[in-house]
């Protein structure tokens, strides 16, 4: 789960990471009132989880009440790279002497947290990593030992931050690591981490990704929402405990097993089609789960044909067939279905489908054949 900037800053504050004080706002009135309280100049910031907010006009400094209203008005409802701004964060404008970059990421290769620090703050760090890799100090932390004070010093000296802020920058890295561990994040990033002319160190932005699998231990985080990211199909799938990802195409896909579904998307694309979703019905799916999944797939108005690709292991093909029949009974779909059933109880499953004689349902015996068929039907 990606947190919005203001959510991330609230998490930071809980762990002692210094952040500018600010307030959350959802309307122009709220934003202007917040700015009045905080004092001017204030910054009005669009709360969408995507890079380039500033360039897109989603971050503006207000010098007085009128400007605060004006900016809030302009930013609320704005579309930034496909995301609609529903929320604002209003904070006191910070004076900036230096901009750094700091992050803690879950390094899968090293199987350890990786802490990074750079004095090239305020820029796209992937770009820095490519053009000037020496500008990023990196350090893996032994997760059994945790972040030690010397780690902070070492990074600060290696990144060559200003000598007078080695200690507070090291302390901020320690706090960011604490956020990473205590909140079970997979990414904690501050860009820019600023030094003010008064030589105070602050997180001016906050990017936090939490581990969905750990949210049960963090009920306060589980409640956080990002309205700009909420997709009706994905929400519906989530409520039904289905693993669903919405895509741009027009061919609905259902399979069992994440790898097989990904592979199905690929094979459909190779056949010239464009998948509308990823949907893993999971191992051992029962008929109801299949019915429910069909509803989710068809709730996307772009879908013009659906492909079922099932290789039954734990999943029984007859259960899948029953679920599909039930779905037709309930929903009466108008788009064609291509069904490939293989593996456990495949004969029974195909038999059930044949007997049900559902309108516009085509069975295929191979994955490749099924993909070609569904692409034709969606064309």
């Amino acid at each position, binding site marked *: 789960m990606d947190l919005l900037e203001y959510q991330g800053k609230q998490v930071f504050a809980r762990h002692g990471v210094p952040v500018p004080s600010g307030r959350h706002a959802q309307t122009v009135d709220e934003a202007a009132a917040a700015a009045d309280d905080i004092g001017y100049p204030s910054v009005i910031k669009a709360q969408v989880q995507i890079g380039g907010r500033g360039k897109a006009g989603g971050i503006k400094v207000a010098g007085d009440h009128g400007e605060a209203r004006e900016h809030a008005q302009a930013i609320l409802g704005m579309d930034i790279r496909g995301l609609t701004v529903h929320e604002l964060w209003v904070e006191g404008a910070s004076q900036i002497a230096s901009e750094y970059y700091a992050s803690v990421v879950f390094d899968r290769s090293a199987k350890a947290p990786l802490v990074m620090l750079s004095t090239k703050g305020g820029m796209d760090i992937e770009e820095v990593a490519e053009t000037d890799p020496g500008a990023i100090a990196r350090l893996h932390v032994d997760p059994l030992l945790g972040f030690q004070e010397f780690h902070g010093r070492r990074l600060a000296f290696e990144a060559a931050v200003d000598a007078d802020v080695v200690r507070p920058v090291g302390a901020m890295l320690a706090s960011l690591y604490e956020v990473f561990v205590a909140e079970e994040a997979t990414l904690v990033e501050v860009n820019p981490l600023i030094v003010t002319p008064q030589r105070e160190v602050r997180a001016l932005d906050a990017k936090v990704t939490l581990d969905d699998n750990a949210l049960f231990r963090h009920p306060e985080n589980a409640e956080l929402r990002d309205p700009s990211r909420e997709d009706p199909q994905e929400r519906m799938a989530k409520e039904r405990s289905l693993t669903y990802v919405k895509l741009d195409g027009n061919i609905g896909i259902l399979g069992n097993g*994440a790898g097989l579904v*990904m592979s199905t998307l690929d094979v459909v694309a190779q056949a010239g089609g464009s998948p509308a979703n990823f949907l893993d019905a999971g191992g051992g799916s029962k008929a109801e789960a299949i019915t429910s999944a069909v509803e989710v797939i068809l709730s996307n108005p772009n879908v013009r044909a659906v492909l079922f690709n099932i290789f039954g*292991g734990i999943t029984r093909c007859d259960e899948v067939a029953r679920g599909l029949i039930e779905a037709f009974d309930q929903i009466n779909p108008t788009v064609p279905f291509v069904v490939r059933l293989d593996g456990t109880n495949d004969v029974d499953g195909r038999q059930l489908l044949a007997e049900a004689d559902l309108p516009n349902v085509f069975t295929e015996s191979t994955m490749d054949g099924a993909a070609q068929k569904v692409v034709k039907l969606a064309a």
Partner: protein
Amino acid sequence: MSILVDSNTKLVVSGITGREGTFHSLRNRDYGTQVVGGVTPGKGGQDVEGIPVYDTFHAAVAETGANTAMIFVPPRFAADSILEAEDAGIDLIVAITEGIPAHDELRAFNVIKKNGRARLIGPNCPGILSPGKANVGIIPAAFFKEGNVGVVSRSGTLTYQIGNVIAQEGFGNSTIVGIGGDPVPGSDFIDIVALFQEDPETELIVMCGEIGGDAEERAAEFIASGVTKPVVAYIAGFTAPPGKTMGHAGAIVSGSRGTAKAKAEALESKGVRVGRTPTEVAELAASLLAAAA
């Protein structure tokens, strides 16, 4: 021969008294695996169709001499169960559970590495099948027979799909290892490919990867550095958009890292044949084996 599990495997199942745990334990036993016990705290002294249940792994190991553990408990308890198995001296831990918190996996992985006693397969994996010898996990054994193809995969069903086509071509498997789809798998492609390289029965290795991380790229380097047996690979997720988790917690393209294209290219640059579809992988494997025969 085979790797990891065989007729010497003595399996203890954590979570044996749960619905899934019972089902698959019995299925593994029916296949011929020595399922010597189960662990469910508070149910020590009971049995599951003749399989004795213990309160702790330590008691199970002391009583049965178990060397292998299968973890079937819910995600919240899984890392604890893995660490308990490790502490009790189990050699091989196969964690089926999906949805374990990433930091739990990180801890479990690093403790196992530090102590250097046990090997962990998974979590979020279908387990290990050595056809004709032992099945530890949920791989449907019916599709596979004994043979000389070693399979290692991040995905379950996709493996069955590929394995099935290979079987239809007339070939069988030494061992099929699901390493799982999580960000911190206990064992990586490299670990398993190294075992297949040493296994006299295995003549060809099929590696089934997917988007996310760089395990495939590292495996490509490893293969180039000394794997003499032919390797055929498949990578799923060419059409996956960045930033979206594709079912497996580990299957995510982060920024520009972990794409299927980069993985396929890394493997091909080291001479590994990469099939474009599961069918093509199976055909490639079959033709290489037929040529060698």
